[in-house]
């Protein structure tokens, strides 16, 4: 998003710089044209004037007029020369016919004349018109263009500076604006991530400028307040139910155990009672585990990982879990293979991740028939750590996969449905979500493949 607003600023800078350039260059070209045309007009008027003089009084009159005007050199910048057929100067303020200038009648020429100014030789550019008079004399009328050239050069320089400064200002403004926008959006994104991590008390910052960002922040904050209120209500209800259930269950267990301890060792009636108490305790175990799992899911979803995170090597963790389950699986006729060749580090809660691996292995143990195989795979990827557990058991039908991730949903045949709490995959999915990953179920044809790709924070 920083890229997009910066790119926008760049596009605007380029556009505004281009338009400013077009404007200023046009003004420059128009000015240059006008100045050139002005010189041409002055020269033409002067030529007409002198031609009139010639007609009225001949060469002498022209020469006299020119002699009168000669001392004006340097003030008006006018250049005159009347020369005879041999190009010898007759009158005017040029000492000789300019070198390398071909006498073509009615043509504009450019040359330079040197003049002494404050003791130094200075070259002046001149633009002039050449006329052939009726008597064969040559008339050269021109103007010193050095001033015009200076003006144009300065004007050109000012134009370039103008374009440069405009571009710089627009770019600075655009960059500042883009940065401000990007910072605000980034700040919102960071806050949202914290909120998704479970801290519902966070709010988007309102800076009081009453701009559209404030409007957005206010709307989102109002929504968050509602969500937080509802979550607190739900959590409180859930916590009190869980707590209220735990205490009687705890007492029930203590009483059953007391009954079990108290029976005389060799009494037939007590033996009968024991046969009832044993399974009752096992049932109680299941209820308690379900409750504990529900609490674990609720806490994982509600608190996020705000309290405890460590650096976890998922490869080592998977190896540990496979090691724990391998004997049990072998006893059930399953073969489990670990494929985790190198350490795969991620940041997370070790116990919860262990619970995720455990639940997937427990599921395999429960659903894959004897003779089956289970593969556990951990790999480093450019995005993070890829984890998967696959088997060649019955798998889960595609239309049942989404439901299998829901709490209290059991899939498969009746025997499989009867065991377990129906929370295993649900907890695994919650743990995955907590670590920024998504648990997906796929077809290993035959069998189930559970994927979980953990992103590593950059």
């Amino acid at each position, binding site marked *: 998003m920083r890229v997009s607003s910066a790119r926008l600023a760049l596009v605007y800078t380029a556009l505004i710089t281009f338009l400013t350039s077009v404007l200023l260059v046009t003004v420059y070209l128009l000015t240059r044209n006008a100045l050139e045309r002005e010189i041409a007009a002055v020269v033409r008027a002067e030529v007409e004037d002198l031609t009139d003089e010639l007609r009225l009084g001949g060469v002498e009159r022209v020469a006299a007029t020119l002699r009168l005007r000669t001392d004006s050199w340097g003030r008006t910048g006018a250049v005159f020369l009347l020369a005879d057929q041999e190009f010898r100067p007759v009158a005017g303020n040029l000492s000789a016919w300019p070198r390398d200038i071909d006498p073509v009648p009615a043509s504009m020429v450019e040359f330079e004349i040197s003049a002494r100014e404050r003791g130094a030789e200075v070259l002046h550019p001149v633009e002039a018109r050449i006329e052939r008079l009726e008597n064969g004399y040559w008339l050269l009328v021109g103007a010193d263009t050095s001033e015009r050239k200076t003006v144009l050069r300065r004007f050109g320089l000012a134009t370039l500076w103008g374009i440069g400064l405009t571009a710089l200002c627009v770019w600075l403004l655009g960059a500042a604006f883009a940065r401000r926008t990007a910072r605000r959006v980034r700040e919102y994104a960071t806050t949202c991530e914290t909120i998704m991590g479970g801290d519902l008390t966070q709010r988007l910052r309102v800076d009081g400028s009453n701009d559209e960002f404030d409007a957005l922040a206010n709307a989102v904050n109002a929504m968050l307040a509602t969500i937080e209120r509802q979550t607190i209500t739900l959590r409180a209800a859930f916590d009190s139910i869980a*707590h209220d259930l735990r205490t009687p269950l*705890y*007492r029930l267990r203590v009483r059953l155990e007391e009954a079990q301890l108290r029976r005389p060792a060799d009494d037939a009636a007590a033996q009968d009672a024991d046969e009832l108490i044993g399974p009752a305790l096992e049932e109680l175990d299941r209820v308690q*585990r379900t409750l*504990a799992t529900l609490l674990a899911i609720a806490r994982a979803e509600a608190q996020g990982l705000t309290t405890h995170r460590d650096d976890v090597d998922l490869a080592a963790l998977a190896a540990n879990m496979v090691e*724990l389950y391998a004997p049990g699986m072998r*006893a059930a006729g399953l073969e489990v293979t670990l494929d985790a060749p190198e350490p795969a580090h991620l940041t997370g809660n070790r116990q919860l991740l262990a619970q995720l691996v455990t639940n997937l292995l*427990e599921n395999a143990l429960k659903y894959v028939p004897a003779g089956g195989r289970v593969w556990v795979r951990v790999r480093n990827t450019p995005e993070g750590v890829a984890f998967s557990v696959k088997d060649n058991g019955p798998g889960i039908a595609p239309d049942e996969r989404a439901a299998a991730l829901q709490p209290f949903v059991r899939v498969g045949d009746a025997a499989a449905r009867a065991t377990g709490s129906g929370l*295993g995959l649900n907890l695994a999915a919650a743990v995955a979500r907590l670590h920024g990953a998504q648990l997906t179920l796929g077809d290993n044809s035959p069998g189930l493949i559970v994927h979980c790709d953990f992103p590593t924070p950059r």
Partner: protein
Amino acid sequence: MHLLLIEDDAEAARFLAKGLRESGYVVDIASDGREGLFRATEGSYDLIVADRQLPHFDGLSIVAMLRRSGRHTPVLILSALGSVDDRIEGLRAGGDDYLTKPFAFGELLARIEALLRRGSQPEANTRIKVADLELDLLGRKVIRAGKPIDVTSKEFQLLEFLARRVGQVVTRTMLLEAVWDLHFDPQTNVIDVHISRLRAAIDKGFERPLLHTVRGAGYVLRDAV
């Protein structure tokens, strides 16, 4: 051994105290945090069992205050809160062990015994002997009656944990915590399979079994029937 039980649920406190007394402990009961803290600082107890949620002072504050006043009486915290973070918090506050309600009484008994015996047994660091079973801690080898026995490294860890607590009941959750660093109960009894493999390794073919199952509680390694 003199225990202090700080528990506000009167019925649970009565059951626990009764069970503990039957197991040979002298038990005092405190029914709220203030009384608990008062008794804990005044009396000389060998161990304190404190509920985490109590009126006045909670279990964690009691532990923290005890530790600040320089008392190192072992404290076992009982809690209805079950997340991993709660456990870490409890141990960080200075608790020595943490048990989530509801628990089997056998579990509590085993953990109390483990805490009380902690430090009283000499810390073996080269060799542990239980009857004719010998553990070479440096070479990670097991020898029974002079014959070397092949065990995996996890089986060795299991056996070492049991051998360091000869005659003490060790629960499944204690083994899961110590050997696999897991602080939750898997659904299936995965530990049982490991124990039966270990038993097959060290007891099979010998007249006197050393590794025993204690019903409803766990396992014990001992040289008696």
